[in-house]
């Protein structure tokens, strides 16, 4: 204890630390420009291998089919993608959420194979997708 105190005093004197901050609170309502979605692509029967670019193209094409060029030009990012499970985290601008969700619902075919998107989780906070209490499995 004394050693740590001494070290504290020698190596990092209090004067070098910034002054204590004052209290401040901000409330941000509907601040997020983006919405995040965790989705999984499932195939009827055997699954088809897709890489990240093909996966994104499938979604952009689905948006184009339902909402035209306006839909396909929405800012959409594929933040994370797992080729084995076909699970992905998508980021879409908030005003495009309903368009993306509807396009995913109606997307039913890839390379003449029947498929469907399962929306696992959605949130305006990316951090919320890191934990899912509904997946807490205790056997």
């Amino acid at each position: 204890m004394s050693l740590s105190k001494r070290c504290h005093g020698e190596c990092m004197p209090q004067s070098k630390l910034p002054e204590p901050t004052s209290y401040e609170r901000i409330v941000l309502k509907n601040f997020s420009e983006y919405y995040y979605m965790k989705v999984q692509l499932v195939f009827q029967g055997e699954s088809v291998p897709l890489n990240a670019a093909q996966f994104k193209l499938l979604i952009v094409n689905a948006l184009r089919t339902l909402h035209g060029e306006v839909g396909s030009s929405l800012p959409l990012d594929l933040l994370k993608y797992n080729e084995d499970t076909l699970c992905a985290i998508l980021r879409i601008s908030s005003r495009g959420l309903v368009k993306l969700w509807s396009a995913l619902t109606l997307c039913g075919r890839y390379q003449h194979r029947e498929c469907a998107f399962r929306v696992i989780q959605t949130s305006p906070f990316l951090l919320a997708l890191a934990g899912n209490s509904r997946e807490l499995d205790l056997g």
Partner: protein
Amino acid sequence: MYYYGIAGPALPISWHQVAAAITPRCATEAAWQEACSQDPPLPAIPGHSVRVFIQAERTSSAHFTGNMLRCLDSCPRHLLVCEKSNFKQEKSRHSAHVETHYFNCLVSVLLPECGPLPEKIKSTIEGFGSYFVIRNLSVHEFVTEDFRNTFIKQGSFYALSYQTRIDQDNTAALLPTGKLILSVDKDTYEELGLQGKPSLYSGKNAMRYTINIDLTDKALSADGKKFQRINWCLSEKKPLLFDFLLAWENTESSSILSYFSSYKIKSCPFTINTTVLRDLHCPVINSGRLHGKAEEACSSERVFEWFGAVSNNIDCTNQSSSFISTFCCPFPSTVVQQTSLCTITGFITPEKIQRLLQQLREYFIEPKLTTWVSLMVHGFADSPVSWGENEHGFCRGGENLYSFIIFNNEDYWVQMAVGTHDDCPP
């Protein structure tokens, strides 16, 4: 009049799916019911298109189309509350934020410039012990005098119904303050015969009710009328059975096992996962600047988003021209050689989080390369409360989470986020 048509892929989809996909909220009730009444799957039409018509009555097409376009662009309400303060300030509310967020399913600790987890923090996490899961427990067990004397009066007892979804099932929770909260659907509420309030988020015609019973109430003595009524309602009139997650903040927490020995009960350890992230882009944070400053420090909400990227293991080194993703770390940032991330999953009580927070404050007693560390906590999406007794609902995500950033001069930031069906955090 029929006036809305779309072209979609040729699939055997049902009217429900079409209505949900195109106009989740803007269809008038008449249109919605009309669509739903024709629920059998639409025939797939060769030529890769399905024409969908929704019949809407008592509304003009301009009104309908305007509503539809607005709904296409809207997104659910959400709130983020950011606070900065100092642990040594008398009125600092950091303890209240932690202690009143009762039900937590995941806690992560992020330590920049740190390889393996420091011994003190590691032993705190390993000392969390375990929690319990019990099957088919009747809620009336919590009301009995024996239970109240053994557990509620002897320490903080936490119980939350397990694998019940608050947007479709009945849900129950027992808070450490001795409040029993039942969130039930309309049918159960009417059968049960206990007084409650309509849920804040179920609209004009309430389909969900919240019942709040104070088990520390002195009027709840064994021979009192109130007790007789509650006990009869929960044990005979409409017995409610749930699987529960249980935790008791008491040195003799294992006595839960013997008390409920007539039920199927087991003790569950916490799942601990530790990873070391290499060459991570970390945002520059200044404890005095919650709003950030151009070229100097990142704002609180950008940092909160970055925490999400780190927790999900998302790559932040993208080019702005990349086709796949243009997501990148907030500016300004520095590259940190190694960062330790530890994740704990289970039924985590606020007391345990409080201990961890205390350890993270003590982390800076010895000088460190980093100026801050972080603690992230996720609440249960299906809990009937978020902070205190604030009613909580699922809507689209059920998120209720918070994160602490602890600075080396005892300053801290706290960011609390809630989704649509939730009140503003305290």
